[in-house]
C-alpha cells in the first residue's frame, strides 16, 4: 500500500527583505515578497528521500496561508512532491498557533496520511510548537527535531542531536516528525520539476470545507494577543581586532570583558 506523506509548508515573508508589522500587529505580508520557509525546504527534502526509498509513496504538501502561498506549494511541487492542498480563507487572518494547528490537523485528516513531516520552526513566527500541537490534535506520536530520518516496516526512526547526546528515536506509523536544518541540504528544483509542477493538482479548501468554525481562528479566536511590537534597534558597529602580534590576547580580553569567557 502506498505510503501517504503530508508535508506542512509555510509561506513566509522573505527574511532578507525589510519585514514590518501591519497596523493590527500581524505580519505585513504585502510589503515583502514571500517564499517557502527555508526551514520547511528541509521537510520537503526529507519527505522526498523517504518517498524515494519506499516502494510506493505519495507526497502531499499542505499550506495554510493567503493566495500567494501558492508559490510555496509550487516550489515544493517543483522539488518533486505529487500534489498540494491550500487552505485559504479571509477569516484566517491573524490566526495563532492554536488556530493554525487546528486547521492543519483538519486538512491533514482530509488528505489522509501515514506520516506528517514538518520543519523545526517557521522563519517568521518561529514558535516551533506547531508540530507538537499538530501531533496532539491528530492523536499520533511525535518525533521532533530530527537530523536523520527513515521509514521502514511501519515505523519511522531517526536521530535527534542534543547538546550532550544524540538520541535514536522511533515511532510506529501513523506519526509526525519534524526535521532540523541539519537533516541535509534541500535539492534545487530541476527544470523538469519546474515544468511538471504546473500540471500537478492543487486542492483549494476553505474553513467550511474542513468544518471549522471561523470563531476558532483568526485574530479574535487567538489565545494570545500581541500587545505591542517594536523594531529591533539597529546593531551598533562591531569591534575589529587587527592582529599585529597581540590579536589573540585582545580577542580574549574582549570576550572576558563581555563575560563570554
Amino acid at each position, binding site marked *: 500500500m502506498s505510503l501517504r506523506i503530508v508535508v506542512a509548508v509555510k509561506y513566509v515573508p522573505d527574511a532578507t527583505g525589510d519585514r514590518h508589522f501591519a497596523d493590527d500587529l500581524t505580519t505585513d505580508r504585502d510589503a515583502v515578497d514571500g517564499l517557502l520557509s527555508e526551514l520547511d525546504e528541509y521537510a520537503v527534502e526529507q519527505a522526498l528521500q523517504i518517498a524515494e526509498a519506499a516502494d510506493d509513496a505519495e507526497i502531499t504538501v499542505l499550506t495554510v496561508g493567503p493566495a500567494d502561498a501558492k508559490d510555496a506549494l509550487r516550489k515544493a511541487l517543483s522539488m518533486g512532491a505529487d500534489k498540494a492542498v491550500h487552505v485559504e480563507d479571509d477569516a484566517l487572518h491573524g490566526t495563532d498557533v492554536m488556530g493554525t494547528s487546528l486547521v492543519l490537523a483538519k486538512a491533514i485528516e482530509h488528505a489522509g496520511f501515514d506520516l506528517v513531516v514538518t520543519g523545526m520552526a517557521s522563519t517568521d513566527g518561529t514558535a516551533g510548537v506547531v508540530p507538537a500541537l499538530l501531533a496532539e490534535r491528530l492523536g499520533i506520536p511525535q518525533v521532533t527535531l530530527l537530523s536523520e530520518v527513515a521509514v521502514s516496516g511501519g515505523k519511522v526512526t531517526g536521530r535527534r542531536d542534543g547538546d550532550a547526546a544524540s538520541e535514536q528515536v522511533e515511532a510506529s506509523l501513523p506519526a509526525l516528525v519534524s526535521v532540523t536544518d541539519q537533516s541535509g541540504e534541500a535539492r534545487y*528544483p*530541476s*527544470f*523538469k520539476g*519546474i515544468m511538471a*509542477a504546473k500540471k500537478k493538482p492543487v486542492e483549494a479548501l476553505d474553513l467550511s470545507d474542513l468544518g471549522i468554525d471561523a470563531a476558532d481562528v483568526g485574530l479574535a479566536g487567538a489565545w494570545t494577543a500581541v500587545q505591542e511590537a517594536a523594531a529591533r534597534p539597529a546593531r551598533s558597529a562591531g569591534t575589529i581586532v587587527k592582529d599585529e602580534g597581540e590579536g589573540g590576547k585582545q580577542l580574549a580580553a574582549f570576550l572576558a570583558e563581555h563575560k563570554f569567557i
Partner: protein
Amino acid sequence: MTTTGSTFDSALLETEERRALRKAVGALGRRYGRDYFTAAVREGRQTDELWQEAASLGYLGVNLPEEYGGGGGGLAELSIVLEELGAAGCPLLLLVVSPAICGTVLARFGTDAQRQRWLPGLADGSLRIAFGITEPDAGSNSHRITTTARRDPATGGWLLTGRKVFVSGVDIADATLIVGRTEDARTGKLKPCLFLVERDTPGFDFRQIDMELSAPEKQFQLFLDDVALPADALVGDEDAGLLQLFAGLNPERVMTAAFSVGMGRYAVGRAVDYARTRQVWSAPIGGHQAIAHPLAQAHIELELARLMTQKAAYLYDAGDDMGAGEAANMAKYAAAEACAKAVDQAVHTLGGNGLTAEYGLASLLTASRVGRIAPVSREMILNFVSHHSLGLPKSY
C-alpha cells in the same frame, strides 16, 4: 550580496516556470559563488562541480529536445540559465557553444545517428562540443574562411585542412564543430560545411593561446593538415551548411548577450553593496550622485539589453530566424556595451579596492571586453545594422 531589484521581478513579463527557473539557477549559482569561480581559475581547474550539478538538474540542456534527454524548452530558458549563473559570479562560458550552437545545429540538422551520439550527452552535461569558425586570416570576414575538406577517395571519408584561432574550450570538449568549405560537385564553387572533429582524432593539433583573461575556459589555435575524418563527421546534409551556420549563430549571439548581462549585473551588484556602506565623508559614498548616477545608468542599460535579449530569444524560439537575427545582433551589441560600462563603473566605485585581488572586480575589465569582440565585433554589428536595418550602402 544584496540582490538589486529589477523590472524583471514582475510576475507579468515572464511565465511562472521561467521565473522559477531564474530563482532556482540563481540560488544554485550563489551557493557556488564568485569565490568558487576565482579559486578554480587560480588553481587552473574547470568549474566541473557546478557544471555537473547544473547539468543533473537539467539546466544545461533546457533547450534540447525532450526525446534526447533535454528539457524541451528554448533559447529563452537557456539564456536565463547563463544570465543567472553570471549574475551570481560564476558563468559557464561553454553554454554559449555546446548546447546553444552545437546542440541547436545537431538537433535541427544532424542525422539520426549524430543526434543519438551527441544530444543525450550535451543534455546531461557529460559531453561538450566546442565551435571553431574564426581563422587567423579571415577574422571578422567569414567569407574568407579557407579551411577546406575534400573527399578521401580511399575511405569515402574527408580530409580537412586549415587553421582556426581563439576557439574556446577545445581541451575540455569531446569534439569541436568546425566550419569549413567543400567543393560543390556540380558547380565547382566552395560552399560551407560543418564537421565534427573528435578531440582525439589523429592529426588534430590544438595549442593554447596565452590570454590575459581570468576564466577557467581557455582559447586555442587549431592546426589541421589533411586530418582524416569519417564520412559521418559531416553534419547533416552537404548542401545545408549555410542554413546550419545561420541556425547556430543566432543562439550564439543571444547567449553572448546573456553572458554580458549576467556579468554586468554581478558587477553592479558588487558596486551597490560597496557604495551602500563605504563611508569616507559624512555619508556612504552611494549618497554622492557622482557615484549613484553612473550605477543607475548602468542598471538601466543592462535592463534594456536584457529586454532586447529576451526579444531575440522570443523571436528565435517562435521560429522567426530572420527577425531573430536582427534582434540578436542588437541584443549582443547592447549587452556588451552595457556590460563594459557597468564593469568600468563598478571598478571605479570601489576606488583602490576595485583593483585588488580580494574584491576581484578588476579581472572583469578584460572579461567584459570579450562581448564587444566575439563572436562578432561591435563594428561588424554596426555594419550589419547600417546596411540591413537602415538600408545604407554596404561598407564591407
